């Protein structure tokens, strides 16, 4: 593994190694010295073209716990906002000796492009509507910790699949790890070729709920309504929102996941968001361990 660009590039063994490594590294958070010397002298650049304090902070903390030097290079207030191309920025980072670049970009494929221009490892921290591999990995990690397995797990992913990099990465990864994925959304928010994906598709949440071990809700942006993807927030929420009543129809030990940020009252009710079956804060905590694992596996070796 030289870069982490897509979960589709991971074999089952590689994905499992990442999850196992994260499991060991999760214990570092419980120690008095929450730091390992592993990446001492290595430089990790957080290259963020989109605002995402959550993801950037998570990567930053992960890198720092491994003793890497971390540089935050955000699009705002840098030469990037003055029109410098991604390639020139990449060459600059290269000249500075970046061993790893964590990139968040609004353009699908930006991480792939970057990987052509730098020698160091490239970690895709979200590229447009393409993929968000570490999110999917931390989701799988959370499922495995909570439910003890991934093989055979029934996972429903609900919401704006069409524009979701989280959904794309999760479908690829969970399928590799042996889970059964069902995508649930109005047809307008599903890719046209979704029938060729390695998952099931449903337009009916109530039909899927009783058959799901995990329900992962995706954020639905209000602007999609203006673009006629669905008629109104009320109708969306009524058909695809998860409330307490629907939660009650899920299997006893089934969990509710959300990559955040949540829109309470839209895809998830406050009651569900605050329920112990909802893993949102666990996902955040697991994100640090998982990103440590990825940084270690990409930058720790030769």
């Amino acid at each position, binding site marked *: 593994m030289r870069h982490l660009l897509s979960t589709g590039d991971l074999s089952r063994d590689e994905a499992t190694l990442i999850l196992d490594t994260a499991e060991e590294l999760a214990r570092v958070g419980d120690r008095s010295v929450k730091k390992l010397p592993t990446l001492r002298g290595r430089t990790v650049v957080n290259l963020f073209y989109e605002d995402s304090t959550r993801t950037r902070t998570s990567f930053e903390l992960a890198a720092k716990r491994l003793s890497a030097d971390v540089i935050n290079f955000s699009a705002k207030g840098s030469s990037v906002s003055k029109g410098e191309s991604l*390639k020139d920025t990449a060459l600059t980072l290269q000249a500075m000796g970046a061993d790893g670049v964590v990139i968040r*970009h609004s353009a*699908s*494929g930006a991480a*792939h492009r970057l990987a052509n221009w730098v020698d160091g490892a490239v970690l895709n921290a979200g590229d*447009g*509507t393409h993929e968000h591999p570490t999110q999917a990995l931390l989701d799988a990690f959370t499922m495995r910790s909570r439910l003890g397995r991934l093989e055979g797990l029934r996972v429903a992913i609900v919401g704006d699949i069409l524009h979701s990099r989280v959904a794309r990465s999760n479908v690829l990864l969970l399928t590799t790890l042996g889970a059964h994925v069902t995508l649930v959304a109005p047809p307008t928010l599903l890719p*046209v070729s979704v029938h060729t994906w390695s998952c099931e598709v449903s337009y009916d949440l109530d039909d899927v709920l009783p058959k799901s071990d995990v329900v992962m809700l995706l954020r639905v942006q209000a602007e999609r309504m203006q673009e006629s993807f669905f008629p109104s927030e009320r109708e969306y929420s009524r058909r695809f929102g998860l409330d307490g009543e629907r939660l009650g129809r899920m299997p006893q030990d089934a969990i509710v996941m959300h990559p955040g940020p949540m829109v309470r009252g839209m895809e998830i009710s406050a009651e569900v968001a605050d329920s112990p079956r909802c893993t949102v804060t666990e996902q955040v905590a697991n994100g640090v361990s998982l990103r440590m694992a990825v940084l270690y596996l990409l930058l720790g070796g030769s």
Partner: protein
Amino acid sequence: MPDTHAPHLIRGARPLGGDPVDLLLSEGRITEAGPGLAAPEGAEVVDAAGLIALPGLVDLHTHLREPGREDAETVATGSRSAAMGGYTAVHAMANTDPVADTAGVVEQVWRLGREAGYCDVRPVGAVTVGLAGERLSEIGAMADSAARVRVFSDDGICVSDALLMRRALEYVKAFDGVVAQHAQEPRLTEGAQMNEGRVSDRLGLPGWPAVAEEAIIARDCLLAQHVGSRLHVCHVSTKGSVDIIRWAKARGCDVTAEVTPHHLLLTDELVESYDPVYKVNPPLRTAEDVRALREGLADGTIDIVATDHAPHPAEAKETEWSTAAMGMVGLETALSVVQEAMVDTGLLTWAEVAERMSTVPARIGRVDGHGRGLAVGEPANVVLYDPAAPVAVDGAAMATKSGNTPFRGMTLPGRVQATFLRGVPTVLEGEIK
């Protein structure tokens, strides 16, 4: 400007792939044809054994970028590129800066072409002012100008307003003109980045659905038939479009259509690299579309091959996919790509290639003196092509100012050895003169 006006005796070329003969080019015409011709005094002899002779190619769809984007291409560099590809006439698209929507701009481009002298440059006039799709540009003035414009197009942008399209189709009838439509329904393609389908869904790139092309073609065919005008469809890229054009021709619509070399050979799977060298509009489609386009070109549903040569400077392509410019250079690889996709596959003979790359495009563009065949007395616009000279494509080695070729790294089967424009070599031994 090539300066040699000596007669040229071409020895042993195979006209349209037929039996070898000698051709004597003199005073701008083919003056003799037959086996074992004697070389007149002062004649340059060109050994053409094994080479195929075709009438000089005519491109109905070229972007020369001048005026406005001389960093990407100029009329001079673009026409040299055309000569290297075997072209003796090209149509320069109107989406320059300023837009070719007045007699002044089209005459400027036409004059630049004459000064360069590597091929005849026929400007295309914009259908609407500034390509804005709001009101007709001065089509009559452009038709009457020294450039004698006959092809009108807002290429790059679709004339999507049905009423405006109807008016344009009607108006050009007065000048024996043709409207060349870039068929792309704008609402269905907002933000579109590549062909909509399995690959775009996987890559998370907004899709350009086939129906956005097909819907406009269907509408325009019906409009053209209703008002009795000529319609030309640019760069047809989908199987559905081929079906619709076949249907329109069957019901008597006066429609012609073109396909680009890249749509005959490449598919959207290439986009998986996210390398914008594969970004083009209309986008690369699926293998099924490629198959249908080849069949359509073979059976005459698609009339011609046009390059849509679209040079871009390196910085417009060395970027993330979504900000990259759309377009590919194509003049210098067109004939070889057509050989690979159509001739070597048995779909077209060389005579049919000549029709689709010279005769018919000249007829659609009303280009006098081109696309006339290789008989004695015809203008000496000739290309000599070696179909057994595999070339590894390298954008940096091309005559075009921009290297954005999607065929780079591929080996194509043949190369142009010589091009003659009215008897004067613009290319000899594969080198620009």
